[in-house]
């Protein structure tokens, strides 16, 4: 599924390359947001925001630094944390494309299905809330978003060694909290 023909460098100017990139990743980005936000309208807004950010920042992609999905999840994380910092009204003003305006009834029910499917992940995030930010970020990407260690390192802009150390620490910390994380999510931790 990974999009390899053209790196993200060309996607901000080449409509065909952008469309291929978008079609390849829109579902992953939607699910990424559905694991972290429980309102379908906000998910739609954030998905729109992520792809606008892709247009803004495609020039920051360096093929050597990690996979495309790692880079894209980095963009998605930045978009989400920017959204959390800003007031909602500010977000509406800053968003050039309103995602929620594009939702119809069918889209809403599909979005709700994804939100339901991702609810264990949202519970896992709550359980991870006590971890230090740096460790939690790695754990999120590797365990919940299923990125490889190099991909997570690319998403966070840190070295792979550092990523492994943080992942290890986070796993150890979470093992001491039995029953907080559902077994399916814990499978990835062993």
């Amino acid at each position: 599924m990974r999009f390899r023909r053209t790196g993200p460098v060309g996607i901000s100017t080449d409509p065909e390359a952008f469309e291929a990139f978008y079609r390849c990743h829109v579902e992953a980005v939607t699910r990424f947001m559905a694991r972290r936000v429980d309102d379908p309208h906000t998910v739609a807004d954030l998905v729109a925001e992520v792809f606008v950010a892709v247009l803004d920042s495609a020039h920051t992609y360096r093929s050597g630094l990690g996979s495309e999905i790692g880079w894209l999840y980095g963009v998605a994380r930045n978009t989400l944390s920017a959204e959390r910092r800003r007031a909602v009204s500010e977000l509406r003003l800053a968003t050039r494309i309103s995602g929620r305006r594009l939702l119809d009834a069918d889209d809403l029910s599909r979005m709700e299905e994804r939100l339901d499917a991702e609810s264990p992940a949202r519970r896992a995030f709550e359980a991870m809330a006590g971890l230090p930010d740096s460790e939690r970020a790695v754990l999120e990407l590797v365990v919940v978003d299923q990125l490889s260690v190099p991909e997570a390192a690319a998403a966070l802009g840190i070295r792979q060694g550092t990523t492994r150390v943080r992942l290890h620490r986070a796993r150890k910390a979470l093992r001491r909290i039995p029953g907080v994380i559902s077994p399916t999510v814990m499978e990835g931790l062993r």
Partner: protein
Amino acid sequence: MNFEERLLMELKTEMNERAARRPARGPLRRRLPAVVAVAGVAAAALVAVPMVTGTENAAYALTRNPDGSIALKINEFRNPEQVERDLDELGVTADVSYVKPGKKCAPGRFSTIGEPRVTPEELRSKDPAVRDRVRKAIENTPSARAHDRMPGGGLRIYPDRIKPDWTVVMEFTENEDQTSGPEKPRALWQYLFQVTDGPVKPCVLVDDPSWDAPIDPLKNPEAFPPAGG
């Protein structure tokens, strides 16, 4: 169309607008009036249509509607002969030309039925009463009655208003600068749709100076119909 498709269209529009804002790129942006009439004998209804870039891959789509009308949606300006053959199967004799920007088929290659009696002065008139009369005269010609523009781009053809021995002459021109969208509507292509009961000579290209004439959207708001109109 679902959320993902609509978002993709919005994003492509955003890309186009960014490309348009980028300096020193491509040819001068061209804007075309919604209704341009060729002065003199052939007052042709030449209409510019803004179109949001779609995702379809086919060069064009022809569909028969339940009411008997035919929807013609052109996505790419190639293979006009095939459009003619497909229209023929649907009972419409057509002569279709795709013309490069800045060119047009030389006038006088066919004789339009029911030319509106409108003078060039009346076409340029700012008097609302005159404009209204001109609009009605153009709208009531057999050519205008035989087709409509579809919302979202494309033409709707009414075969029951086209007599069996008539030929529909269509000329399409696509703008080289394909930047348009709901927020900044702009003509992406223009077309001519005329019916004739006589022979149609082949299209001989001549320069179309009107294509390059800049049009101020404030002075000519009718030249910028809302997207999809």
